[in-house]
């Protein structure tokens, strides 16, 4: 009587749970990916204890203006700025940029852009006539968030405020970060 040794059983690896986990991970990372315009520039925001949560549905139709420093040599950029790298205010005006959706603007261009944004919003979202939309004295409900680096001199933010006010945009929000939890 011989017992035949068990023939070799192939060892099958059940990949179904692995594929399930991969789908879940993929779903997680896809849902948390943020390709919003505000992510285009690295900005060190000021911290504030009284900030309100920035909900995604409130951010719909909102325009983000980023006020940021040109990337420094330390971060593989093009300008030397030891003050900025040391997290101190940078006083070199040429290092600072104002951008909307990745495009940079000077003072006149920003005013023109703000008027375009206000006009389009009034025409398409607030259903105003062309004449009303073009009239900068009629304020718009368009919300604008200014995300300014904490080291930027106020005059850059002031330019943004001034140009937005000229275009009839008065609903301004300022980006801030939560304080460090100690």
């Amino acid at each position, binding site marked *: 009587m011989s017992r035949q040794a068990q023939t070799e059983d192939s060892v099958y690896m059940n990949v179904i749970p692995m594929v399930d986990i991969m789908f879940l991970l993929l779903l997680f990372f896809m849902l948390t990916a943020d390709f919003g315009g505000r992510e285009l520039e690295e900005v060190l925001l000021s911290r504030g204890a009284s*900030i309100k949560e920035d909900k995604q549905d409130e951010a719909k139709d909102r325009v983000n203006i980023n006020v940021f420093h040109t990337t420094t040599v330390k971060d593989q950029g093009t300008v030397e700025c030891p003050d900025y790298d040391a997290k101190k*205010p940078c006083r070199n005006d040429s290092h600072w940029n104002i951008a909307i959706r990745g495009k940079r603007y000077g003072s006149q261009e920003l005013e023109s852009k703000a008027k375009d944004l206000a006009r389009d919003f009034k025409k398409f979202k607030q259903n105003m006539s062309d004449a009303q939309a073009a009239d900068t004295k009629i304020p718009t409900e368009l919300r604008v968030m200014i995300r300014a680096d904490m080291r930027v001199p106020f005059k850059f933010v002031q330019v943004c405020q001034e140009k937005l006010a000229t275009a009839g945009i008065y609903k301004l929000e300022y980006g801030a970060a939560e304080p460090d939890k100690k």
Partner: protein
Amino acid sequence: MAGGGGGEASADNPLPLNVVPLIDVIFCLLLFFMCSFHFKTLEGKMEAWLPQDKGMSNAKPQTDILGEIRIVLEWDKANNRVVRRFGRTEYPNDEDLGELMRKQSDMAKGNGKGDIPVIIQPDGEVPWDEVIRVMDITRQKGLQKMEFNLARSEFKIPDRGEHQTR
């Protein structure tokens, strides 16, 4: 007979479906999203709407000091610091500044003036962080009306040529 691999049709599954490329694509996508993922600081916002009806102005401070709480921020270049003033008094300490705002607000309410605005008047060289700090103190004290002294500035940023005027 040896069992078939993934591509072999079985009696139960007449349609062979090769899932190996599917898993490869999923791996690639997963790798992409993992590499582009980063933990970021939770961002919030502070609202400080501009006054609709006032527009641009070079408004001088009111003579009636109870009608507003005007906080002036100036950059002291010689000493490399920000000077925060209410009237002629300097308030370098956040707690003192907050208490001042609270007292002024309560005084104004007591005099029947209702909620008076906190007007923040920074000069152009003050770091933005200092301005946010004053805004934060204002909000922490429960004062909702906050405005910037919106005056025309002489400062101009050179145009970049990236915007097409319509």
